[in-house]
């Protein structure tokens, strides 16, 4: 009940003209960015981090949330009309959506995706309202060892669940941790990895790392392999659904969130696994199983609904525990740090206006998105024709603006380019980028918690595992680490 009152207060915050404006700007930018090929939501939020220097936090986060959801809406347009999903979360949408578009049912596919995102986002955000205060209340007493355990969990999860190669994930994480070490030690003020340079003593700004890895790295990588003949997007009319389509899609829309939300909330869950699971589920339950692969509308509706709900799930662990589980959440956490706000159990007590305003704005954003996307889909689809040189030149341009805005120093631009070249190399050799970003953002905090925990226990390592919470989390970590061995053993027994 209490959270309902807080939510009402949140609507009071979100519905002020200024914040409504930021929500509208966010969903517009988000949809545009989602539709634009080559720009994912993480890059979009990273490129927009500099606005945090000029905006107050509530407005900035309302805008970021709009971008996050908007990019999901827009992303499905790209996969359905162009069949080249930029984000892993949109791969499934292309599998059924593109054949539908080819068969002249693109309008129905877009409608099924947009309404799916709307239902998934709504149900997911409702679950967020119900669950987040509970999680925060449970976690409010956790101390240094518990925080450390959670961060270790995040490190292990991003390196071993995502990506095809664990060793490359760990390499990426260690690179991130190393970048995070640069600068003055927080407790003693000793210079680490600064090589006597004054500029490096302040550390490498997280904005520069995020923009460098997500934007410059991506733009350079695409430039090295630019497809000279871009695919032609299929023409599409205004999205609509016939009664028969609605009969086939309402159940998948409602089922999706319950697959998507839990996966979003766990570290490294992201949207890939739940969208795929939702697809498989719908295929199994459908009466039109023979249509799958040739354009079954259920295969668009369910996964898209799951994708949006997983975004809401991501926010649960980000807001209540300070744990980013996806690239977007990681960059949003960096934005919180820019404001000196520490997401975690205390956030709901210390910044109720910000948190509930943000959550309420998700509902507002969802309604705006549905209103924007259904009638305007053909207009958005025009964005797919943007000449690629302009698109990638624009990314470089805005990345430069962002890095320069950090401190007004040209040297930051050079650091940005170096980080960008690192990002290029990582893409070339299959090192995932997310672990590095998580390492930069969480590394310094994890070190602080480690040292605090050991200070309390007077150096005894048992001080790291002296709470039931931390023991439980480490058990999950061990399970994750042992999973490949376990799976092998199970497979052997089965055969």
């Amino acid at each position, binding site marked *: 009940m209490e959270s309902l009152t807080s939510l009402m207060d949140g609507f009071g915050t979100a519905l002020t003209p200024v914040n409504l404006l930021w929500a509208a700007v966010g969903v517009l930018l988000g949809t545009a960015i989602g539709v634009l090929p080559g720009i994912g939501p993480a890059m979009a939020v990273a490129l927009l981090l500099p606005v945090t220097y000029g905006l107050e936090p509530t407005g900035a986060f309302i805008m970021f949330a709009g971008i996050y959801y908007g990019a999901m809406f827009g992303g499905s347009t790209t996969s359905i009309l162009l069949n*080249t999903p930029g984000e892993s979360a949109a791969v499934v949408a292309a599998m059924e959506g593109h054949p539908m578009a080819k068969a002249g049912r693109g309008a129905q596919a877009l409608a099924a995706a947009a309404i799916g995102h709307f239902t998934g986002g709504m149900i997911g955000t409702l679950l967020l309202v119900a669950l987040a205060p509970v999680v925060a209340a449970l976690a409010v007493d956790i101390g240094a060892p518990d925080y450390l355990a959670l961060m270790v969990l995040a490190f292990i999860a991003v390196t071993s669940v995502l990506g095809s190669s664990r060793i490359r994930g760990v390499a990426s994480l260690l690179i991130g941790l190393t970048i995070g070490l640069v600068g003055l*030690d927080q*407790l003693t003020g*000793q210079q*680490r990895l600064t090589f006597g340079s004054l500029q490096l003593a302040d550390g490498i700004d997280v904005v520069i790392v995020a923009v460098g890895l997500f934007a410059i790295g991506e733009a350079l990588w695409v430039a090295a*392999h630019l497809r*000279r003949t871009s695919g032609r997007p299929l023409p599409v009319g205004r999205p609509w659904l016939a009664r028969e389509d609605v009969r086939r899609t309402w159940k998948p829309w409602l089922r999706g969130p319950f697959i998507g939300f839990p996966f979003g909330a766990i570290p490294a869950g992201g949207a890939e696994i739940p969208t795929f699971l939702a697809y498989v589920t719908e295929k199994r339950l459908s009466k039109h199983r023979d249509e799958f692969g040739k354009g079954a509308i259920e295969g668009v509706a369910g996964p898209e609904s799951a994708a949006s709900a997983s975004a809401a799930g991501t926010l649960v662990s980000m807001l209540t525990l300070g744990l980013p589980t996806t690239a977007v959440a990681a960059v949003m956490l960096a934005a919180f740090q820019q404001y000196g706000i520490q997401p975690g159990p205390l956030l709901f007590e210390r910044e109720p206006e910000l948190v509930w305003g943000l959550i309420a704005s998700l509902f507002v954003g969802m309604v705006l998105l549905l209103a924007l996307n259904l009638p305007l889909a053909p207009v958005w689809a025009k964005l797919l024709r943007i000449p690629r040189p302009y698109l990638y030149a624009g990314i470089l341009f805005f990345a430069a603006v962002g890095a*320069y805005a950090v401190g007004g120093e040209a040297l930051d631009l050079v650091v940005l380019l170096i980080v960008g070249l690192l990002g290029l190399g990582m893409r070339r050799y299959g090192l995932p980028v997310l672990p590095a970003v998580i390492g930069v953002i969480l590394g310094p905090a994890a070190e602080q918690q480690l040292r605090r925990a*050991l200070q309390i226990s007077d150096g005894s390592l048992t001080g790291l595992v002296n709470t039931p919470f931390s023991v439980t989390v480490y058990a999950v970590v061990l399970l994750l680490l042992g999973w490949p061995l376990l799976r092998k053993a199970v497979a052997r027994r089965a055969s």
Partner: protein
Amino acid sequence: MTGGARAWLRAHSELGVSALLLLLGVLVLTDALTLDVDVAARGPVGPATVPLVVGCGLLAVAVLLAADVLHGGRGEAEGGEDVDLDAPADWRTVLLLAGSFLGFAVLIGPLGFPVSGALLFWAAAYVLGSRHPARDPLIAAVLSLLTYGVFDRLLGVPLPGGPLMGVL
């Protein structure tokens, strides 16, 4: 070098990643070991502990990655909407883009943001294959001026105006 050896190196260029990780590890470890820990030690864990762990981790990963590559493991190059992995990598474009970017870093001081930003966009679009003698610079100028206005005036994020803004 014989052709066979060169082909082997090209196929195993990922060993370079391993070498870089090794170098980074050595760097982190040297830095950690030369820290003046005794002076500043507060609590049982000093400023050198975590760097030591990270440094050792880097060395270990470098060795494991090298072993993986030698056993035929390959990092998968990342795909994307506009990425054509079948075409050979076009490193010339990448170099020219990096050069344009460095040029921007040098010019932003003397020329100010609106001019240097427009030059960056124009140069990058040209390098990426856009050949419209009128449209390219026009878009670059409009984008750069608009961005300057939004950030400097609207959002309160200061960008240098340079001599051009002094004139206007």
